[in-house]
């Protein structure tokens, strides 16, 4: 139980974000109304995705320097979990966008680039599955992953800032921090992010352990 403390922390934080996210005070804003509460649920999906991809790329680098098969397995499973969070982020964003921007897909640069980055990681999974030889597969997919990560960061956090975007904090739009992410919201938003990140790491870790067991049985 002692090494499981972070799993309990993840559960408590996610539950807290659900309770405080609905019952807490939020700033009264036009157009957004109560849907500002989506900040506690939609944005942590993206943060979790980025952190999971970051962990994956760290294991890819580790694999290339060590050749340890477990590092390769870890980097795949973290990408797999990250893709799930990416799709959740896209889907929740479409619902939110439909009611605040008037369309589920208003061709916002941040939306388009997040779709591209998700496709990029789907290509990573396809690339892996298309290679038969284990060492070659591990090496090629590790290199691909290392290239994909900075491109994902540029697509999500740099390019949308250079054009006009509906998302806050992009293209001259004020970020949430400047006008409405007040201290009341921070108290829910940051724990929610941490909780979902830990939950994502937990799921990826479980997947890795199951994959390791499967490999052991095969050999």
């Amino acid at each position, binding site marked *: 139980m002692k090494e499981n403390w972070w*799993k309990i922390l993840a559960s408590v934080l996610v*539950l807290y974000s*659900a309770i405080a996210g*609905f*019952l807490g005070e939020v700033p*009264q804003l*036009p157009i957004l*109304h109560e849907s500002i509460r989506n900040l506690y649920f939609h944005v942590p999906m993206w943060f979790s995705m980025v952190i999971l991809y970051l962990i994956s790329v760290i294991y890819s680098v580790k694999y290339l320097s060590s050749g340890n098969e477990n590092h390769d397995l870890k980097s795949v499973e973290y990408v797999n979990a990250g893709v799930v969070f990416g799709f959740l982020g896209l889907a929740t964003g479409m*619902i939110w966008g439909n009611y605040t921007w008037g369309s589920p897909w208003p061709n916002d640069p941040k939306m388009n680039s997040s779709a591209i980055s998700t496709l990029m990681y789907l290509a990573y999974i396809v690339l892996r599955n298309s290679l038969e030889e284990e060492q070659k597969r591990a090496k090629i997919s590790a290199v691909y992953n290392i290239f994909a990560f900075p491109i994902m960061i540029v697509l999500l956090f740099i390019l949308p800032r250079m054009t006009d975007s509906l998302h806050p904090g992009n293209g001259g739009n004020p970020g949430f921090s400047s006008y409405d992410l007040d201290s009341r919201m921070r108290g829910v938003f940051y724990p929610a992010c941490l909780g979902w990140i830990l939950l994502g790491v937990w799921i990826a870790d479980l997947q890795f*352990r199951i994959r390791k067991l499967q490999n052991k049985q095969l050999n």
Partner: protein
Amino acid sequence: MRKYIAAIYLLLFTAGTSFAQSDSGVEMADGMRSSGKIYVVVAVIVLILLALIAYLFSIDRKVKKLEQKN
């Protein structure tokens, strides 16, 4: 499969929206909160999350047992 996707899409994006403005300018769901019924929603969501987390813990335990066997 396509039928289900279409049904889900309809469910998610066609819910009615009302634009009745209250006196204070920005309309918030104050009626829903004053009647207390929002707690029902919170209870449902907390139950779902709790069940999913318990499920994750049970998967974790199963994997650990398998790891110890091998």
